[in-house]
């Protein structure tokens, strides 16, 4: 090796060593690295200039406020300009709230604000005053129902007016929240010694897992009213919620069953030999251990469900994606596909990425907990 290389401070630094070892260790590696850099640069720079540097936000290149698609720079000088984000701004209200009445929208905002407070107690077990956060978690659904739907002193807002992120979060969070206890019962039932209970759980889980969510949504939409007494016709959102909850509970049950199977038999035997009942040993011994193990797969299926909620647009509900497609149908903003889809993807990505990070954090935490 020549002295110039040895004395080069970059090559002796930690980054330098890492680069050499991982990216430039042989001619082939160097070649692949360079091709990759070129490729990333091409795609990245194209996307960035489209999305940011050459894009219109609220005004076009002439400085006019964008009122409809004809003001977009790319429609004035085709081929020279990037995205026209004004459509997102024009439709932002709908993306967030759907057709929720503007004078009542503070109720949705308040619910959005309270949601993190309701979740934080579940997510972080070392939180100070965690007990109170958990209490809040349990009363939050009632507060949210009262705020969003209305009741005494608040005017009623039918779910047919809900839409956008509100519907996506409502289905995602409520679906996951309701499916969780249901899935624990299903997982326990599937492992039950009692043949009727266990076969019922197996049939339920296998049936739901064997059917696409779209089919379930259609089924719930068409068939749910048939099972209910005459005159009671649950609204569309509720029907979708039932389908989403059942779907999620089957998948989560399998994740939890995996955790249950990982608990050695001796744990139950020890608990039972001391006189603890089935429910006591399940609650105090088995579930705390099994759920810890199943957290990553539970989060995994939850991310899946959160994205799958966009399928409700086929039964006429306007979730985030549904609102996006409605915006595209608007004559004054027609043909701005990319902007809408990129925005919708970004919103989904933010939520799913947060869930995924949280899952990683938990996995790391579990590893350190177990090595005690």
């Amino acid at each position: 090796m020549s002295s110039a290389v040895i004395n080069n401070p970059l090559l002796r630094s930690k980054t330098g060593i890492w680069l050499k070892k991982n990216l430039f260790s042989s001619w082939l590696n160097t070649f692949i690295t360079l091709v990759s850099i070129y490729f990333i640069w091409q795609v990245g720079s194209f996307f960035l200039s489209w999305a940011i540097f050459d894009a219109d936000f609220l005004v076009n290149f002439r400085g006019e406020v964008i009122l409809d698609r004809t003001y977009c720079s790319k429609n004035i000088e085709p081929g020279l300009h990037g995205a026209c984000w004004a459509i997102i701004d024009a439709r932002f209200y709908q993306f967030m709230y759907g057709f929720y009445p503007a004078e009542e929208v503070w109720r949705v905002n308040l619910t959005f604000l309270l949601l993190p407070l309701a979740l934080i107690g579940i997510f972080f077990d070392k939180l100070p005053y965690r007990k109170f956060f958990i209490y809040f978690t349990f009363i939050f659904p009632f507060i949210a129902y009262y705020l969003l739907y209305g009741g005494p002193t608040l005017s009623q807002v039918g779910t047919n007016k809900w839409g956008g992120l509100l519907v996506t979060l409502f289905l995602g969070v409520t679906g996951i929240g309701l499916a969780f206890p249901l899935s624990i019962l299903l997982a326990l039932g599937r492992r039950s010694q009692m043949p009727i209970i266990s076969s019922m759980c197996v049939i339920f889980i296998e049936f739901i897992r064997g059917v696409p969510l779209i089919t379930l949504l259609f089924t719930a939409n068409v068939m749910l009213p048939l099972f209910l007494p005459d005159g009671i016709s649950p609204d569309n959102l509720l029907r979708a919620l039932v389908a989403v909850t059942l779907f999620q509970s089957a998948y989560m049950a399998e994740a939890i069953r995996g955790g249950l199977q990982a608990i050695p038999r001796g744990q139950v035997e020890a608990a039972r030999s001391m006189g603890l009942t089935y429910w006591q040993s399940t609650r105090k011994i088995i579930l705390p251990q099994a759920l810890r193990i199943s957290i990553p797969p539970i989060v995994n299926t939850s991310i899946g469900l959160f994205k799958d909620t966009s399928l409700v647009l086929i039964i006429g509900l306007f979730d985030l994606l549904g609102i996006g497609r409605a915006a595209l149908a608007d004559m004054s903003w027609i043909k701005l596909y990319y902007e809408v889809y990129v925005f919708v993807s970004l919103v989904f990505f933010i939520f799913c990425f947060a869930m995924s990070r949280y899952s990683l954090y938990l996995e790391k935490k579990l590893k350190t907990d177990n090595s005690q």
Partner: protein
Amino acid sequence: MSEIVISLEKVNKWYDDFHVLKDIDLSVVKGQKIVICGPSGSGKSTMIRCINRLEAHQEGKIVVHNTELTNDLKNIDIIRKNVGMVFQQFNLFPHLSVLDNISLAPIWVKKMPKKDAEEVAMSYLEKVKIPEQAQKFPGQLSGGQQQRVAIARSLAMNPDIMLFDEPTSALDPEMIKEVLDVMVQLAEEGMTMLVVTHEMGFAKTVADQMIFMDEGRIVEQAIPDDFFNNPKSDRTKLFLSQILNH
């Protein structure tokens, strides 16, 4: 005349086709210490696991404290409260501290107030000589310490019968003594004990009765003196010569 606390009559058990227990007859008097030995697969663990119904027998009768073990869950619960069990693999609850491991059953089964249950737990931790480990988690203790916690955990329910299923088989040799010492102390206090073990030194000091099992049968039952010095069956002689001369 001493009171019979456990009696097994013509007990048979099968795992599918495999006949694990064959016509087991046994009666245990209050305060008696019985050591059970035999080759692996001889049914000795299965037998003591039947006594608190961790395994169900298919034929015969098992009576503990005048309560017969049947499918009746209430009877099973009554018996389990009075019969403690210590396992080969300790089976401590890894997500609970040592103190919580021990106070769990008193709190949930005996409905004891938490504070009282923790006092009871501490007193038994002192008895097994590791009160300083109360706040640790099972994973932070040595095998011998874990098994002593497991013994304390069983004792905290204040049972009058203790079952030990190979309590030292999973331990490193240097830790066996600390566990056996606790068991000897327990025996001296008059606890009724059924111990499955190959620790013949322990058996000689503690046992009132020795039982040798092979292929699901009780082959020989005798007082330790006769059992070690004058075994009747050839199978017992062979077994003893193998385990005493290694």
